């Protein structure tokens, strides 16, 4: 078993390197442009937030606040959008017996995780420096929530992949709902800015809880009224199990022809 896991890790690493090399190959500096893409999205968000200055909780630095919410969400979004296309993009690699569809999903996700994590670190260091918001209060907590966000993103992607194979246009409807989810997941504003009577309809969302807890672990003067690490752990376990089941079902019953 350890040998099998080591082999799979090696394959995933190789696919991730291949994906990084394949990014923006038509441009000089290739992969660097992927970082620039993320950087520009983040910059746009920060400028919007600084100009509007709306929904900002008192005492919290606006740019760091929006970054700690938006980048984990962008990563989640990129990961769930990536699962299906990563197989389509690299399906020729499936002629190699060492590679499975799951490897392609994970390998391609590693590339996204590296890109978004680099962007997250650079952006938060810069914003913390200019806004004097300092180092995260509970760094390990932030890391755990970030990893949770990755697990949920990949698992949700595998579920959506199954849905996409059953009914191809499903992705369009999901994107429509995810636009609302972006606003209801505490990305731009904390849950305290929503009226309390709608909280019961929002707090089932594990991404909202992750966002809330990242802020709680980051800022010394922010305490989330809703974040529950145990609930998030349950959701992650459930979603990972369901995601893997969906992936297996898709691979066995509905392979790409």
């Amino acid at each position, binding site marked *: 078993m350890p040998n099998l896991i080591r082999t799979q890790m090696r394959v995933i690493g*190789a696919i991730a*390197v*291949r994906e990084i090399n394949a990014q923006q*190959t038509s441009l000089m500096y290739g992969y660097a442009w992927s970082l620039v893409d993320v950087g520009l999205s983040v910059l746009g968000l920060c400028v919007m937030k600084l100009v509007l200055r709306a929904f900002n909780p008192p005492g919290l630095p606006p740019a760091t606040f929006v970054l700690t919410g938006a980048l984990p969400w962008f990563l989640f979004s990129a990961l769930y959008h990536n699962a299906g296309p990563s197989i389509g993009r690299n399906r020729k690699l499936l002629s*190699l*017996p*060492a590679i499975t569809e799951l490897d392609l999903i994970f390998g391609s996700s590693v590339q996204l995780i590296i890109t978004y994590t680099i962007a997250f670190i650079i952006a938060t260091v810069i914003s913390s420096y200019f806004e004097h918001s300092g180092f995260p209060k509970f760094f390990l907590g932030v890391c755990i929530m970030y990893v949770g966000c990755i697990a949920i993103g990949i698992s949700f992607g595998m579920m959506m992949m199954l849905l996409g194979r059953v009914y191809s246009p499903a992705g369009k409807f999901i994107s429509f709902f995810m636009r609302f989810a972006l606003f209801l997941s505490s990305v731009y504003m904390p849950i305290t800015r929503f009226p309390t009577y709608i909280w019961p309809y929002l707090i089932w969302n594990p991404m909202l809880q992750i966002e809330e807890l990242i802020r709680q672990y980051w800022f010394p003067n922010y305490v989330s009224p809703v974040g529950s690490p145990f609930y998030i752990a349950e959701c992650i376990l459930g979603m990972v199990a369901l995601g893997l089941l969906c992936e297996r079902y898709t691979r066995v019953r509905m392979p790409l022809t």
Partner: protein
Amino acid sequence: MSVLLEDVTKAVKLQGKPHLLFDKLNLEIGRTSRIGILALPKSGKSTLLGMICGTARPDSGRIQKDLSVSWPIPSGSFIVPSSSVAWNIRSLARIYGVKNPDFVHSVGELGGLTNFLSQPVSRCPPYVKGQLAFALGIAMEFELYLFDNTIVPQRKEFKLQAVESLRQRTEGKAILFVTSAAQAVTEFCDSIYVLEQGRATHFPEASEGVEYFKALQKAEAERQSAIAADRKPEDATPDSTAGDDDQNVEMATALLSDF
């Protein structure tokens, strides 16, 4: 120590209809066997190789293997044309965990590609991709090498070198060569299986298997020409003779052999 296929059944959809490729297929490949499988076109040769190497699953039956199996050589579908030859070699080496720092150079030499290592595959002459796929396949350490349709690239200048490299690299290892070309099999294989109606018949003597397969090809060609004649009766000219039918059969046989 071998690869063992037990009662393997596999069906695929052809033009929307289910078509049974293998019906309780049994096959054994020993650790140092050099086996050829002769099969008519469209009889599931690549699917069989896919099942043996693990990229396809049987509908029922068991495939047991306790040796490392290559991908079907010379498949080069994983080669990225916009990237350089060396990049493609490094990429595959990473996947298979090859640590040898000279691997790129040794694959280049095996494939006669040392002058093209830094060039994108798409800008190289057309034969480079085939030679690269062949060299990548035999450069890797496997215990069973699978070959699909051709065993060495057909370019005259490279063929002799390729045969020599192949013999060296696969010495003491197993080979499975699946093809419709009967002559090529006798050159590289000791025994033969002939795939017929989803089942495999074993011929310990390669020459016997080839004879049997040629008869099978001829019968298939006759069947095809009969179907063609039924479909287009209006094409027949008044002065057509029985000799033309024989000629059709011969042409169809030749075509099938070339395939």
